[in-house]
């Protein structure tokens, strides 16, 4: 990729991120109440979207060989287990990632 292409991608991500933060102020900053359906989606859509993004992360899982699915499954379960146990973001993320790296590099 050229520097310009990288810069364009970063700029798009920055602009869209800012837009999601600015939109409520633009739409409702003058004292209007947001419609109830917006509040409803604001409350229940995020957990659905996180589930969607987890499926996205696992989109390239393959069942042709154990190396295509086992590392992701084992490390994923480890992250959930660690987080239920210690509730420490850093421990869960770094621990799970190191386990995954060890599995793909050394085991499978």
């Amino acid at each position, binding site marked *: 990729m050229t520097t310009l292409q990288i810069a364009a991608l970063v700029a798009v991500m920055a602009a869209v991120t800012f837009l999601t933060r600015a939109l409520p102020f633009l739409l409702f900053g003058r004292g209007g109440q947001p419609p109830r359906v917006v509040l409803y989606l604001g409350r229940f859509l995020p957990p659905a979207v996180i589930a969607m993004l987890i499926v*996205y992360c696992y989109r390239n899982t393959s069942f042709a060989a154990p190396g295509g699915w086992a590392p992701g499954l084992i490390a994923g379960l480890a992250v959930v287990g660690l987080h239920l146990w210690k509730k420490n973001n850093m421990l869960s993320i770094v621990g799970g990632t190191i386990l995954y790296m060890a599995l793909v590099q050394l085991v499978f």
Partner: protein
Amino acid sequence: MNRKTLAAAFPHTVPVLMGYLSIGVVFGWMLSAAGFAPTWAALMSAFIYAGSGQYLGVDLLKSASPLGDAAFLTLMINFRHLVYGLSMLEKFQGMGWRKLYMVFSLTDETYALLAGVSAPEGVNEKDFYFAIALLDHLYWIAGSILGAAAGALITINTEGIDFAMTALFLVIAVEQWQSNARHAPVFLGAAGTLACLLVFGPDNGRFLIPALAILVAGLLLMRPRLEGGGEQ
């Protein structure tokens, strides 16, 4: 903003300091491992400033994603910010030019701090909010640069480091699961997305577009049940 304000704000931001340094280091390292110069880590953290958004950004840069796909995915992942703004409308009133920065820097962590703190006696409330937002942003930039520099200097086999993004989303999911009494949206999200993945295939993440349509439609259909079942 003066030293007194910074000194008052700093203790409140220590948990974010720890969190942002570590999550930022992992982000910087991932970006280095994907072959991008540390300058990009610094620029992304300065101008995008979104944890999970930037983890996803590494993926988008690595796969040279088309701009439209990048915009859509970024929108998806940052959708939750729409809710934060709603509860900050009053807090940010009368902050002048700094309001723009407050809106830009409204991350999950800064939101959580601002929602819970109040300025001590003798410290201007708006300066105090601004100091918290600015400190958090600096921690994030510092962590990213540290991680990117480490990734550029230390050459170990980094295959699999991109799993950090999956791990981050799993952590968010566990926390949402524990703070919500209703889990139907989680099952809807997983099943709807999986169905679209099977039908459309994994390329460029485009299956997320029909998946999102299914999620919104599904949630609207479930509204009487989810809303009617009493508050959590």
